[in-house]
């Protein structure tokens, strides 16, 4: 079976801080990581590969430094890694990104054979859009299953898959034919400590670089210019000031003071 995982390299959001003076993000020195959700997608694909055979390909669109993310994906057990990197992609929104990734995936499929399960993370922690996966799935015209928390069954003969996904009211067990497209939650699995041979293979295997020249990607759908959405402005939300520690002789006194402070809000909400 062939599994294709879309991974994004993102700045570790936990370490990004805000410069309130300039209203920008301080990204300097912030390490780039594989989007946490995508790691679970890789893990799932690798486990299925180990169970059913075949291979795991990973595809990442990003600047040359994103090669690190792909190397890490191979260390986790992915077989082939592709970096889609070209100036023409700069500034792509989710529609343009999903086009480029779809086109690049098609190129990979042409070279290496059809994909049974596509994987993406639920969302990327930098943009938090959760749109790229659904966008790619739609272009492939394969069933889309979002928020997957469990892969219950894969039947390579019947070419079906049974998964559990999160919905507002609980969970749903879904059956779908393969090929299909899953976007995954962190709960899907626990990342395992990869065996040494994976790491050695990753260190030895080069990442294949794709761009507008060695693929059939149509530049007129890519990049800032061809993205329907544009950023008008970016700004930092007002800084949260340190509030007050409520003090008092007794806990009752403290709680009463607290209550007085929030009473207007409770009233406004119709709680009192």
């Amino acid at each position, binding site marked *: 079976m062939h599994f294709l995982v879309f991974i994004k390299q993102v*700045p570790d*959001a*936990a370490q990004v*801080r*805000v410069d309130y003076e300039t209203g920008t*993000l301080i990204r300097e020195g912030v390490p780039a990581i594989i989007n946490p959700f995508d790691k679970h997608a890789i893990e799932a694909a690798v486990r299925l590969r180990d169970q059913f055979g075949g291979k795991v390909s990973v595809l990442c669109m990003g600047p040359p430094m994103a090669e690190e993310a792909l190397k890490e994906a191979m260390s986790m057990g992915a077989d082939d890694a592709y970096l889609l990197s070209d100036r023409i992609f700069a500034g792509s929104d989710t*529609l*343009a990104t999903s086009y480029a990734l779809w086109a690049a995936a098609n190129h990979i499929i042409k070279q290496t054979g059809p994909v049974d399960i596509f994987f993406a993370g639920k969302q990327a922690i930098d*943009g938090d859009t*959760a*749109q*790229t996966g*659904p*966008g790619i*799935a*739609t272009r492939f015209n394969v*069933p889309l299953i*979002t*928020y997957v*928390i469990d892969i219950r069954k894969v039947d390579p003969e019947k070419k079906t898959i*049974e998964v*559990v996904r*999160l*919905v*507002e*009211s*609980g969970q*749903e*067990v*879904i*059956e*779908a034919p393969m090929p*299909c497209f899953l976007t995954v939650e962190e*709960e899907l699995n626990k990342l395992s400590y990869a065996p040494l041979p994976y790491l050695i293979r990753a260190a030895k295997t080069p990442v294949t670089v794709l761009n507008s020249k060695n693929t059939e990607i149509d530049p007129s759908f890519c990049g800032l*210019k061809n*993205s*329907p*959405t*544009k*950023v*008008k402005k*970016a*700004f*930092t*939300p007002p800084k*949260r000031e*340190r*509030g*007050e520690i*409520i003090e008092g002789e007794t*806990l*009752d006194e*403290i*709680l009463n003071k607290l*209550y007085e402070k*929030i*009473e207007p*809000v409770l009233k406004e*909400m119709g709680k*009192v």
Partner: protein
Amino acid sequence: MIKQDISKYKHIWVFIEHDNKEIARVSFELLSKARELAKDLGCEVHAFTVGEKVEQFAEEVFKYGAKKFFIIEDPFLKDYITEPYRDSIVYMIEKYKPEIVLIGATTLGRDLAGTIATVLQTGLTADTTGLDIDPKTKNLLMTRPTFGGNLMATIFCPDNRPQMSTSRPGVYKAIEEPVKGEIIREKFKFDKAKYTKKILEKIIEEGEKVNLGFYDIIVSGGFGMGSKENMKLVQELAEVLGGTWAASRKAVQAGWAPQTRQVGQTGQTVHPKIYIACGISGAIQHQAGMKSSEIIIAINKDPDAPIFEIATYGIVGDVLEVLPKMIQMFKEKLGKA
């Protein structure tokens, strides 16, 4: 990019999210917000949805000011499944050409919107918390948090229609403004063989609502709660306040709460009116999910805990002492004793 004749598009469409029984609250919020936008644009607000039995919603939809309600009813649409929902909705949008399409940023809404926008080859802005009309260009300005709420971006979609956005629940007030509306029934012929995805089973977690975004009060427990048993205090306080409860990742990992209730970078982003953090240190990853709450109340025995940096009100103390008293107090004050 495919260029369109954008002058052909008119009116604001709001997606009515439902489970064939009840409408999701966010749909009313969006109808209310859409009315404001429609004033600026000089157009109408329309509602639309598809499903097995959706005509029943007409009255409620008109109550919130939708002049028209576009629907497709079909037994095939009994359950929400991405692809048939997408295809029937796309059919209506292509036929009636709304200028703006608003969908709630729920799990369902975000599943649906991405695929619709791709078919329509138009822009989609995710998870917005602000919607305005640019007075000059009349474009929709969509503002949304990124980088875990550290940065806000205002996004617009100048050359493609419809302008689409998923909008966070709980941001806008649902305000009634009844009108006499009109139901427009459409039909869509499903090529049933095309839809191969099936729901085998639905696991409804009673009371286990997944979307914390629906609540204006959230009481959240962290590792400082000490045990699963003690988490009940958090639940009880939430109940007394008519809100819901949540947890930090460490509490989730300890098995004291389901992941569906995790707040933070890898959990849900919430912005209730009141967020009460009990025994939560306030790690940056946790803050990413709750920093934009209006009022943050923190209870922690460590006066140096980072949560106090962002808390509106802080109580330095042991949760096991503070919470029982707090529950008792709110019971009395809110007349629930």
